[in-house]
């Protein structure tokens, strides 16, 4: 993406020694017809609610339309950390665990399946791609209901039925949602199953752009499939991998339906993530102040962590 491609207006209006301000103004006037509606929409429905959020995080907020909502400084923030059950910190820990547990698996499965499906001799590529992508196009709520049913406790749940009653891998059926680690594993499996198809599709597209002759040359050198995968495919796909991984991380940070519809944060508030905690705090306990404070802190955290990557993310191409 060279800069020269981005400046058609300079052709139309060659730079003279006008003031920078005037030029900027003209540039804005030129682009405004295209972005004005979008900017207004974003300002009204995205930026304004966000500013409200930040304001509420410093207020003793009441849901009544004309309430006074007195300013309380950082009270809501301290309240979040004074919670005797440390729910915010647990949610924070879980968020990082979710990233650590799902991103590598998700990434590996995506590239692995994509490379296999892309093998020259494989027929019905499109059929495979369609099937792998099915979970993506299905609603979170429905899949959550389905997973709760598949992971039901006792031998009545399909997973326990297979692993315990049929194969005997488990000595007794697992009560998946009743224990911390099994609930987390269930959440992760749910997330991975639901989203791995996205990575597969992206990588499949990316693989179309990998020159075939490189593989042929490797064949002549007698490289095996494994070597070709690690020495040719992975390095060549590096830019797309960056894009995929960033998106996977962002997705793993944003767990909400995964937790809210599966465990509601249980057992004992141990599986909460920040968005699900915010939802519960605001819409169950009517504590909008602390809920907003959590949102602001989460936003800041992600911002700080990704700031250095922002430029890359912004410029990264989808395909």
């Amino acid at each position: 993406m060279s800069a020269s491609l981005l400046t058609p207006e300079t052709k139309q209006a060659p730079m003279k020694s006008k003031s920078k301000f005037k030029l900027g103004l003209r540039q804005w006037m030129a682009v405004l017809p295209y972005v004005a509606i979008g900017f207004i929409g974003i300002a009204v429905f995205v930026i304004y609610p966000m500013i409200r959020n930040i304001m509420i995080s410093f207020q003793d907020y009441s849901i009544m339309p004309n309430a006074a909502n007195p300013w309380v400084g950082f009270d809501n923030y301290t309240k979040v950390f004074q919670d005797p059950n440390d729910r915010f910190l647990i949610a924070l820990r879980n968020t990082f665990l979710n990233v650590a547990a799902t991103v590598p698996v998700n990434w590996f499965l995506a590239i692995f399946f994509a490379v296999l499906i892309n093998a020259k001799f494989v027929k019905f590529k499109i059929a495979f791609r369609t099937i792998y992508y099915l979970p993506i196009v299905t609603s979170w709520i429905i899949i959550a209901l389905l997973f709760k049913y598949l992971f039901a406790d006792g031998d009545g749940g399909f997973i326990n039925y297979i692993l315990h009653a049929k194969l005997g891998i488990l000595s007794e059926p697992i009560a998946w949602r009743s224990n911390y680690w099994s609930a987390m594993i269930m959440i992760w499996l749910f997330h991975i199953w639901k989203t791995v198809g996205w990575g597969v599709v992206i990588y499949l597209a990316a693989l179309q752009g990998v020159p075939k002759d490189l593989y042929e040359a490797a064949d002549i050198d007698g490289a095996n499939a494994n070597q070709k995968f690690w020495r040719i495919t992975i390095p060549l796909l590096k830019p797309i991998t960056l894009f995929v991984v960033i998106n996977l991380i962002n997705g793993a940070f944003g767990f909400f339906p995964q937790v809210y519809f599966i465990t509601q944060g249980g057992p004992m508030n141990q599986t909460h993530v920040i968005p699900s905690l915010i939802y519960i705090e605001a819409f169950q306990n009517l504590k909008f102040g602390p809920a907003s404070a959590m949102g602001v802190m989460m936003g800041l955290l992600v911002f700080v962590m990704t700031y250095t990557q922002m430029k890359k993310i912004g410029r990264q191409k989808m395909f």
Partner: protein
Amino acid sequence: MNKMRKAALTVMALAMVFVMAACAGGNGGNSANGGNAGNGGASNGGGDSAPKVTIEYWHTYSDAEEVVLTEKIKPAFEDAHPNIELKLTRMPYEGLKQQVIAGVAGDAAPDLMRMDIVWVPEFAAQNALMDVSKLEGFDELKASVFEAPMATNFYNGGYYGVPVNTNTKVAIYNKATLEEAGLTEAPKTMDELVAAAKTLKGKGKYGIGVSGIHAWGLGPWFWSLGGSITNEDYTKVDGYLNSEASVKALQTIVDWNNEGLVLPVMLGGEPGTWDGIVSGDYLMSDDGPWFYSTKIAEQEATGFNPLEQTVRAIMPAGDGGSRSVIGGENLVMFANSKHPEEAWTFAKWMLTEEPQKIMAETGLIPTNTTAADAMTTMDIPFVDTYVEQLKTALPRTPIPQWGEVEAIFNLAFEKAIRGEQEPKAALEEAVKQIEAILK
């Protein structure tokens, strides 16, 4: 060339969507107009000169209950009050509280809502509800209904709703499993139940039907075993939730669970209580009248006859007697209702004998005392036990902070039952946290 064709196709497809949307938009408009026209027509037909007022009523009645509501209640009310139109909106359960909050915050709440009794103090504390105790006719209404359900509307010196129906849970036993445990009738005491559960344990079945770790699931057991949450007027937890009797009650539940006598569903396992009772893997559980209304409705599909194949009784008595938990819904009016007068007219009417009897047909227990008395002569097969249990049933603490208090309560019980904390320590810690919230 190919690309051009694709582009043309896409443009056509987009154009079609626009046309479709336009048509549909037209339809939407029409139906809205149609609705208005309908209103106008109705009021003309009534020949009433007073302008017709529409009041909106949010509810979460079940399928069967909704039929009665729309086919009997609505016409009866509109006949009695021709200048009021009752607009019924059935809300889904998922995200319901969020809907109420958005409605209140956006000044777009309905006039009335049938709301779970535990929400009333919470929304009253937000000033979202109207204090009805000063409205005309309230005292008569109050005198005509049961005291305990009425009390769930009390907050800060006023009443923020009226009880529209009440319910509780009773012990429901699988008849075959009961016989398998060597009993011919439902256990009268906790000791008898525990003995039966021990017999069944050898057969891989579960006997003690605690249905979940929350106040609704634990309440009947905790109270029957002698535990308590607060003092009589709900102002103190210290000395109640952590009293010796409460610790002992919790300890008993913990011991039962350690012995493997309690349903796995208590800790979120399977089968669910209904599945377990139907299959006979569970001896019993406590549940509301909807168990019977739902199971009777689907009897044909499942082949399970709840009246023949189960036995019901009031909760087995322990140190605290036979206790259950009061559930049910209150009819509340929102503070920003546009038609408070008409809404109040409906609320008063809904609590009179006739509508209460109509709703009772579905198994909803009336709060109107005359209607409840009349129920005994109506042919509703399962309701007797519920009415009897209501005499000793207790409400969950009716305070605005109940949502948070319950979260703490649940956590303490879960920690004790899972063996992460001693019952005494768990309850002491809960008391400390709850006192901090109540302050």
